[in-house]
Structure formats: C-alpha cells, structure tokens
C-alpha cells in the first residue's frame, strides 16, 4: 500500500496575525510556520504507524506551495515520511486539490490521508475535492483507521456516539482527533531528513475559483465585567443595553 499525505504550511498557533497590502494579504513577516497539526498529528503519524506495522510500504508527503515551505516538508521527513513532492504554486482549495489529484493520478496511491482542516483557514475541503477529482470514495473526519488487504475500516464521531464504516481502497480520508497521538521527531529522523528525496513539480493550470477580497481581525474578547451577585438589576440592564441579548 502506498500512502500519500497532503500537508499544509501554517502559522504557528502563537503567531500574532496581521495583514498587508490594504488587508488583502496575510503578513508573513516575523511568522514561524509549522506543519499543520491535523496533517501531522493525525494523518502523517497514523500513516507512519501503518508503515511500521508493515501494512504500508511507503509514505509520501505532498505539498502545494512555494520554496519557503520546504522546512515544513522536512519536518514531515523527520517524522518518518519516505519522500516528498512540492508542487510549486499557490492557490485556493480547488487549485491545491487539483494539483494533488493530478500528481496522485500519475503516481498511483492506495490511500490519501489529509488532516481534517488547516488551522489557518479551516477550509476542510481539500480532502473531499481530491476524492472528487480522482473519483475515489471519501470518508471525512475519521477518528480511527485500520486497513486489511484492500478494505479500510474507519470510525467517525456522530452525534452522541460513533459509527464504524468500511470502504474499499483506493480511498481518500480526512483525519480528526483520535486517529493517532502526537509524536516528537527523534534525532535520527531529523538527521535523516536532509537526505530524503524531495521532488519539485511545476504547477499545472491555475484554476482559482475564489479570490480573497480582504481580511479582518475579529474584535477579540473584551475584558470581563464583574457584577456584584446582589446586583441583578445591573446585570439585566447590561445584558439588554450592552450585550443586546435580552
């Protein structure tokens, strides 16, 4: 079984977010980028577990992005991925999914494991789009995965419980919490990362269907207002005039 793990390069969770060019671009200056945690902790680590148990023979990373995202791909190598592909281009979810699918079509993967979403745009759509392009079955938000032969057994959270589903390979899934535990890359993995093959592929036609017009920061949480427990009138007044919820 060959596994393909699409990965994203996202700002560190502690980054201070700001925008440039009249709020039309994300300001990258001073930002530390990391491997998208959902791609790393759930998709890639589970893929590595499948490889370690002998069920997968190869785990390949794929990333659509510019050269400055290569450290993130090497972080994936440090975690154990065998090789990687960077498709040199940037675009929306449709573009990313199309590029990944084109590569997957040519190189043949049995299982494509995406994170459930990125932590910057939270789009959650790339996995499903890839499945659409490839005409493969898609299981979203899987919390468990095992594979026997060409049959995958997955678990998904549903309202008040879980459901277990079965699907045939080739298959695309998106991985959610529970799929695997976070791993710390070991020193050997880190040292091996620099020698693992990373192929750069030119991006195909740019079919962006969406364009960001502008970004804005949310107002954020305002300071907490303490009200004396005996002063219900003030509470009611504030809920009515300030919070406008009653």
């Amino acid at each position, binding site marked *: 079984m060959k596994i393909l793990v699409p990965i994203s390069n996202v700002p560190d969770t502690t980054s201070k977010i700001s925008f440039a060019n009249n709020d039309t671009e994300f300001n990258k200056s001073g930002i530390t980028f990391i491997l998208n945690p959902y791609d790393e902790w759930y998709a890639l680590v589970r893929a590595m577990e499948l490889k370690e148990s002998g069920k997968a023979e190869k785990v390949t990373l794929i990333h659509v992005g510019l050269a400055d995202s290569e*450290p993130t791909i*090497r*972080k994936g190598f*440090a975690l154990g991925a065998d090789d990687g592909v960077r498709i040199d281009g940037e675009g929306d979810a449709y573009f990313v999914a199309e590029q990944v699918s084109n590569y997957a079509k040519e190189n043949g993967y049995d299982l494509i494991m995406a994170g459930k979403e990125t932590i910057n745009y939270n789009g959650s759509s790339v996995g499903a789009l890839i499945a659409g392009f490839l005409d493969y079955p898609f299981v979203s938000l899987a919390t468990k995965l095992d594979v026997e032969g060409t049959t995958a057994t997955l678990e998904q959270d549903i309202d008040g419980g879980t459901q277990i589903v079965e699907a045939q390979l080739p298959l695309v899934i998106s991985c959610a919490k529970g799929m695997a535990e*976070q791993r*710390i*890359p*070991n*020193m*050997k993995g*880190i*040292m091996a*990362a*620099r020698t693992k093959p990373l192929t750069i592929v030119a991006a195909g036609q740019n079919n962006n269907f969406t364009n960001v017009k502008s970004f804005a920061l949310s107002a954020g949480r305002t300071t907490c207002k303490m009200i004396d427990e005996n002063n219900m009138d003030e509470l009611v007044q504030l809920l009515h005039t300030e919070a406008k919820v009653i």
Partner: protein
Amino acid sequence: MSTTKTKGGEFLIKETNAQDIFIPEQWNEEQLMMKKTCDDFIDQEVLPILDRIDSQEVGLMPSLMEKAGELGLLGVSVPEALGGMGADFVTSMLTTEALGAGYSAAVAFSAHTGIGTLPILYYGNEEQKKKYIPKLASGEWKACYCLTEPSSGSDANSGKTTAKLTADGKHYILNGQKMWITNGGFADIFTVFAKIDDDKNLSAFIVEKEFGGISLNPEEHKMGIKGSSTRQVFFNECKVPVENLLSERENGFKIAVNILNIGRIKLAGAAIGGSKRAATQSIKYANERIQFERPISKYGAIRYKLAEQAIRIFASESATYRASQNMEDAIHELIAGGMEKAKATLKGIEQFAVEAAILKVHGSETLDYVADEGVQIYGGMGYSAEAPMDRIYRDSRINRIFEGTNEINRLLIVDMILKRAMKGELDLMGPAQKVANELVGIPEFSEPDDTLFAYEKKLIANFKKAILLTAGGAVQKLMTSLSKEQEVIMNIANMAIETYVAESTLLRVEKMVSMKGEASCEVQLAIARSYINSACDKIWIEGKEALNSFAEGDELRMMLIGLKRYTKQEPFNAKAARQTVAQALIAENKYCF
C-alpha cells in the same frame, strides 16, 4: 567557522573580528529542529510531572531517561557507529541548552550524558566503548560518576578509595566511600575514581552494578533538584575485572579534570536554557498580574528586573556559543592534523578551559539572578510552592556548587591564564609591559571615531588593559604569594569574566547588525550597551579593590588613575536602555532574543 585561529585565553590580549564568532542567530534548520525536539520533550514529558519527579517516584526517572534515549537525546555527542547521532559540539550545546530547562530531569540527563558517558567515550578502549556506549546512548543503561568523597570535594585528588590488584592479577578490589553521586540510586554503570596501591594520583574504573560489592545510602535530602537521585555509594570488596581500568593507571585525575572542562561549558548551556524559561515565566506573570489597575509589567521597578534578566541571559548565551564554536574549530583542526576524534575533542575543549570556567561561573550566576528576580516579580506567589518560581529558585542554586564551585572556577581562571603565560602559550608579558609603560607615559586622549561600535570596542580594549594592569601589578607585587591571595584572584577573575562576556555580547550584536541591519537590532544594541555599561563599573570596583590590597603610596595612586582611565565611559542612560529591552519582552510576552 573562524577564518583566523583563536587560542584559549587569548581574548585578554587580542581583538576578535565579529565575523569570526558563531552567534545563535546562525542556527540552521536541522539544529533548530533538534532543539524543538528537546523543547517538546521537556514540555510534554517532563514539565507536566514535575511534582512526581521531585517526589522520586520509583522508576519514574529511569523511564524518563529511556524515553529520552528513544528520541536520541542521550546520544547526541556519541558517534553514529556507537549508536549515537554524531552531532558536532556546538549542536550538542544547543540540545544541552534546551534540555537544561528540565529541572531535576535535566540534572539526571546531563550527569548521564556528560560525566556518566564521556569518560568511557573519550578514554575507553575499543572494547570498552563497544560494550558500554551504545547502551548508554539508548538509555538502556544509566550511568553515574563517582569522584567526590566525604573528605575529598574540591581537592579531588585526595580521595581515599583504594583499588588493589588480586593475586591472580585478574581483578581490582575496590574499597571506599563516595558521596553526592548523581543518578546513584538507579545507575547501572559507575565510573569510579580510586588509587591503586600507594599511587599519588587517581585511576578510573568502569564498574557495573552487577559486579557486586556496591551498596547505597538512602537518598539525600536536598534544598533543590529533589527529583535527582543523589546517594552515597559504598564499595566493599567490589571486584572489577582488570580490563575495566579506564585509560592508564594514575590517569584518573586528568580524566576528571578534562571531563569537567566539558561539564563546565555544558552547565553554562543548560543554565541558559533554564534561565530563558524562567525569564519567560517572569514576563508572563508580570503581564498578567494587575496591581493598582495596571499589569505590574507597566512599572519601572519590574521592567528593570525583566530587562536585566534578559540582558544577562543574552550576554551569557553570546559568550557560551562563541566559546563553543572556538572549541569546535580547535577540535576540527586537531582532527585535520591527524589526531583521533576522541582525543581531539578533549584537547580542543581543554584549549578553551579558561573560557569554560568563565562560562560556568557566568551561566550559573545568571540563572541564579534570573531565578531570584523571578521570585521577586512573582511577589507573594514567588514564595508559594504552588507557583513555579519556588522550584526554579531552589533548583538553580546547586549550579554554583557542582562541576567545581564558582570559587574554584574563579581560582582556575586566573591560575590557568598565568600558567599559560609562564609556559609562553599566552603572551601576557608584552601587552602587560605596554600597559605599564602607558601608565607612566603621556595619556592617550584620542577619541574613537563615531562609526557604530567604535566607542564600545575602545571600552572593551580598555577593560583588557585594566585586567593587565591589575593582574600585572598583582604578579609583580605578590609574586609567588599571589596563589594564596584568593581575594585578589577573585577580583581578577571577575574582571576577566566581565570582559569576556561583554566582548562576546558586543561581537554578537555587531555580527547581527551586519546580517540584519542596524534598524532591526535596536533592542540588541541596547542589551549590549547596557551590559558593557554595567561591566565597566564592575571592572572598576574589582580592580580598585585588588590594587588597594597590594599596592600603596604613589604607585597605588598611579595605578588607580590608570584603572580609572581604562574604565572611563561616556554618560549612558541605562534606564532608557532597559526600558527598550523590557518593552520588547513585554510585547512578545516571552524571552524573545
């Protein structure tokens, strides 16, 4: 790597080019990834269980060491062929720094990877290395180092533990008592120092717990690092195969000294790691704690502390990595000259033993300062065992004591410098004579040009003259009795420490400016200037005390005038500089340099 060869101790008489030093802003992607792995290990595996570690839950520390071993953290400096990572010395300093934030666990790891593993790695023969190193690097075996005895601490060569060859010549029988043995409670491998028959000097032995004849006292009750196992170890007719003699007979003291050179700079690295985390906690608390309706980080008294913590950390770090790269370069040069790697590593580090001692003192005192002010910033909560500063404060203190007390290290700094001068390895006499001539000549009033760093460089050059003036005077006046005048030696050592660290800080910022431009190094410039400003005053005080103690009359007056001239600075607004530093820390809500 440096383009010009630097020698240990030479900073006293030579100017260094900023481009020739390594600065932490040059870490590469792979090194940073390794550091991140160490940071993540501390965050995920160590910090959540600090109370359990400190209660010495049975089996917990060994299991933590095994986890560290699985990640490769115990074999960073071990060659790949022996199951390690084969990383270079500077990289091993970075991982040491990151793991240094692990409180008692940091002590257990560093004792295992340093004094536990290195004697075998650097002095062991092939069989010994093959037998022990891979299992130490993986964490399967845990190691400790048995040097100190109840009556033999700083005077390590006076140990009473004995080793007697059996009649059949196949074993040594060890008898004696060792104390303060870190990791003693769970160690499998003991490196033991003992005297064979009536030898003058120690020999070293690799002793397996399995050999028998080893018993342990209960855990010591300590002020801090409570989770670190510290035991007395008794050797009672302990039978050690002759092939477990490490290196040659009577070579033990040399092993102990050389391993301590490495231990000292590593301790500085670990202290930097601990200091950075403690500073970050101080900053976060100061930003959160509201008094008089404002976060206490808005107040100047607190800002002073936050800034001063950062200034000292940045300075200590600058000097530590400068020296680490010097050592690295020296090692490579020796290897290129045909020396075997283990020997070259020891020799290369030994060349910078003066710097290692300087860093040990500065690193541990910086950590203590940061911890102490951390408690103060936390106020009442700083004194509560519920808040983190309590543990930081208690755990920090040992660093000024082990790996050679800071007093022993100060003595060593001066002793090693003078010995090198006597041997002709370090030309102190020429420059000292020049300074002496300057004193009686017409003072030089030329002003430094107004290019960036010209003024600060002139100050640093003057600090060196101040040392040569003081040390030169002390040698001349006190001659052979200088070694007994420990107060004077402390003064001179402090002058050397401040000079080396101030210069390293300036060189780092100069190199940073050349990489990033002056505008983006505004805060670092404030740090360097602030440090140099304080160093200058300290050098004046130390020098004055020394001179006043051994010189008198006109000669004393002349020397004091000289010292004054060498520590004269333009007015400097230290308050404004510290405000600049504090504001950057407060905005980032963490130690951010």
